[in-house]
């Protein structure tokens, strides 16, 4: 490693002018990035990670921010150092995209939806490298090959929405690297992706760093990813840098309280080895809550048999159904009272659809769903409404699932108003009780969703789900979007409620470490079917299906000593779940490997 840093951030201060006066987003932050080095910036949501990186690009100005102090020394390609904090925008334009490349947080929105991938890729090349159309196209193709997108020629003609999330993120990466920048800023490139795609992308970036000597500034709040990627780590907290050090230092001997708390909150795959029952996480300094295992009961609450849900693909002249999306295909499982069944699997494999089918938020095509004594499938709209008293759902995105225009109190009270279970003063009391229950201060009752952090919002969603005293809660990726620390709190809350109230969960997630922590039983889904189902310990410690095995391998481990090599990864592209109307898939058949541990024997497509 060379000692002369590419970028050196000195006492950076960034302010935003808001209605309530200036907000200090980044305060006195200094660190260096050296060539061929990956510096990870970690910290909770809102701690100033993105703002720091945007300052380096001088893009904060466009968001209303202002660099009010500090220096951003950048080592130009041509030699000579420039203070980016005071360069004019004209010169910045020659640096942006050329010497510094940036990968943005949201792959879904970072691409312009109306231009083809090729056009967006070549744009920067033509400006900075002075290439003509043909040259730029050739280079773009080369880039796409580098990021290992299948069929790169065809992708150039496609629009962003025609690509899957993983592919889109790879296009963004290719774009950032187009002009072979000396510094690559990656702002949470994998947060929104599921493990398999995440693993691919991490491997890719690692390889590029090694091959081209680019310095990488990697922003994330996922400690497992840090362990996987970083050379050095900078920990940020409330706009300040609180700690800096090599990966090993940070993971093995954290100094600052915040770093310690952060590390403690990370669920690690394998932590639960040997235990058969889920138990709450131990959070640093929390002595008050119990961490007893949760046994549940043996009484069956929900029984799903041969559930099939398909979405018609309409087309042709008279809008007839020409094909079907086989989203859920012959799925059977059961959940006991007070226990948790997790569904894991790749994006698009039908987890959410399965969950929604049970509530009949989407209509299943066939199959049986029994909740206690009621046959959900047979119910009419009235009965269904009544049945939902017993089963509730928490959605993936806490922001999207709350009405932005309603006060929290009303949102939590809404189910009770709908069913008229409690009224008047009792209603208010119950809402207050629910707020206490999910540990939100009562003063929040009059707030709006946007005034809360993600974790708090998710608690509101949980409070709303609890309002009717349901027996079953379907939690669809309820914690995926949250910070680790917040995630830990929410998970503990859920488990605590389970222990106290005997609630059952259908827990949908793609985060294997979390699943390991909370489940009694696990079902692995692939292309609409459950390929493996069994007690959590059995599935995690002895995966039988090749897909389960691949999935396990992809999970990053929050331990710098257990990095994965790219060659370990072996993913096949997912086949299409769309089949013609007359296609009749074979029924799912299982063998019982060990008692309660089932393995799909019919063809799953993997």
């Amino acid at each position, binding site marked *: 490693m060379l000692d002369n840093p590419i970028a050196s951030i000195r006492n950076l201060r960034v302010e935003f002018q808001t209605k309530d006066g200036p907000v200090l987003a980044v305060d006195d932050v200094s660190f260096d990035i050296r060539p061929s080095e990956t510096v990870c910036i970690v910290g909770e949501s809102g701690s100033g990670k993105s703002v720091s990186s945007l300052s380096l690009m001088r893009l904060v100005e466009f968001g209303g921010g202002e660099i009010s102090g500090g220096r951003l020394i950048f080592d130009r390609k041509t030699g000579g150092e420039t203070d980016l904090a005071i360069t004019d925008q004209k010169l910045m334009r020659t640096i942006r995209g050329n010497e510094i490349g940036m990968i943005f947080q949201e792959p879904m929105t970072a691409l312009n939806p*109306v231009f083809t991938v090729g056009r967006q890729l070549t744009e920067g090349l033509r400006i900075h490298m002075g290439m003509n159309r043909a040259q730029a196209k050739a280079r773009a193709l080369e880039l796409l090959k580098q990021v290992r997108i299948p069929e790169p020629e065809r992708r150039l003609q496609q629009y962003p929405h025609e690509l899957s999330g993983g592919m889109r993120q790879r296009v963004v990466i290719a774009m950032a690297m187009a002009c072979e920048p000396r510094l690559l800023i990656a702002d949470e490139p994998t947060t929104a992706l599921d493990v398999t795609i995440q693993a691919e992308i991490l491997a890719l970036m690692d390889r590029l760093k090694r091959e081209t000597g680019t310095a990488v500034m990697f922003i994330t709040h996922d400690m497992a990813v840090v362990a996987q990627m970083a050379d050095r780590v900078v920990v940020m907290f409330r706009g300040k840098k609180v700690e800096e050090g090599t990966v090993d230092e940070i993971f093995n001997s954290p100094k600052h309280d915040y770093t310690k708390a952060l590390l403690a909150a990370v669920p690690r795959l394998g932590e639960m080895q040997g235990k058969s029952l889920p138990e709450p996480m131990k959070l640093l300094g929390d002595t008050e809550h119990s961490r007893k295992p949760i046994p549940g009961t043996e009484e069956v609450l929900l029984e799903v048999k041969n559930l099939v849900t398909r979405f018609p693909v309409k087309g042709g*002249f008279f809008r007839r159904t020409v094909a079907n999306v086989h989203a859920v295909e012959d799925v059977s499982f059961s959940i006991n009272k007070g226990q948790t069944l997790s569904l894991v699997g790749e994006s698009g494999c039908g987890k959410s659809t399965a969950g929604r089918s049970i509530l009949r938020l989407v209509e299943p095509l066939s199959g049986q769903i029994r909740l206690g004594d009621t046959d959900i499938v047979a119910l009419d709209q009235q009965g269904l409404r009544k049945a939902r008293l017993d089963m509730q759902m928490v959605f993936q995105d806490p922001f999207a699932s709350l009405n932005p225009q309603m006060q929290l109190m009303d949102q939590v009270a809404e189910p009770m108003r709908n069913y008229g279970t409690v009224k008047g003063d009792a209603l208010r009391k119950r809402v207050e009780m629910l707020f206490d229950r999910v540990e939100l201060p009562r003063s929040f009752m009059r707030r709006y969703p946007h005034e809360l952090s993600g974790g708090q919002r998710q608690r509101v969603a949980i409070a709303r789900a609890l309002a009717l005293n349901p027996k079953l809660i379907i939690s669809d990726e309820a914690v995926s979007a949250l910070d680790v620390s917040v995630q830990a709190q929410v998970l503990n809350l859920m488990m605590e409620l389970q222990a106290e109230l005997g609630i059952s969960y259908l827990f949908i997630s793609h985060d294997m470490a979390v699943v390991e922590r909370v489940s009694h039983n696990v079902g692995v889904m692939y292309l609409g079917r459950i390929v493996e189902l069994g007690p959590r310990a059995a599935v995690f410690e002895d995966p039988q299906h090749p897909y389960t095995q691949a999935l396990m391998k992809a999970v990053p481990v929050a331990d710098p000593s257990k990095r994965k090599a790219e060659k370990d990864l072996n993913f096949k592209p997912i086949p299409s779940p769309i089949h013609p109307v007359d296609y009749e898939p074979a029924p799912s058949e299982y063998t019982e490997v060990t008692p309660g541990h089932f393995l799909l024997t019919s063809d799953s497509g993997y």
Partner: protein
Amino acid sequence: MLTFTIRRLILAVPTLLFISLIIFLLLELAPGDPMAQVPLTVPPDVKEKMRLALGLGEPFHIRFWKWIVQFFWIEPQVFIDHLIGTSLSDGKLRVISWQTRSPVMDIVVQRMPQTLWVVGMSYVVGVLIALPIGIYSAYRQYSVFDQAGTFITMVGYSIPPFFTGPLIIVIFSVQLGWFPSIYDTTHQVVDWATFKVQLQQMIMPVMVLALQTTAQIGRFMRASMLDNLNQDYVRTARAKGLSEAVVVMVHVLRNSMIPVVTVIALGVPAIFGGAIITEQVFKVNGIGQLLITAIYANDLPMVQTITFMFAVLIVFFNLIADVLYGILDPRIRYD
């Protein structure tokens, strides 16, 4: 997309037939009489004979059927005859206006040039002014330019053309004598000088009409730009080192235009429908004036035909707007 278009086109036929029936019923029910403009000196029994000669003695459904046949069967034949010189339509009765006793379609065709020149041009001009104003107001939101733009467009929108028209006539024709106050529909553009004359006579009606268009489209453009300027992809574009001009005029504009273009498309039928008041004020005598005089004269075949053609355009441009939406926004699929 193609099947979507064809499906909508086929669906449009029953819709339009229904609309034509409703229009017919409405006109039937409306009070008024084609003899209203005949002077009172003409005695009532003569008027009654004139009404009978117009076919008003026949029951309603027969007249409707006749109109349907004339419009959908005979007029297309006339059109084909005109195109390729056949004589399919010889001796068949076309849709005849009660006022002029001549085929309605001929008059409509005659009115097209001035309508398109003036109303069409004003729409083009209005849109062309509105777009930059909208873009710049959004880019510099709450700047002086933005505030002034809002002010002027809103005042422009709230003052009706029956006032602005005479006002600019008084200023530019009477006081300054720059432009003629009366539009000459027979004027032929053959050379530079006549083109200049044409420009002079167009400029005032175009200005008055464009004001309204500018106000509306400008507001839309601004709102749409504001929606897009904060999107993530804009930051991506900047991060690539693109210049502001490219970022705003290519990346943002292309996205902002999607809703605006459909709004613009939806406004097009109004061009062919003419601008009733402005045409009246400047004596442009386009389709709008034709329609309003026909309405005053209770010239039912004329009103029915023009309104129906207008309905066809509305349905058609609705479809165009939807299709455009699909073309401009690759995310939308109509299948």
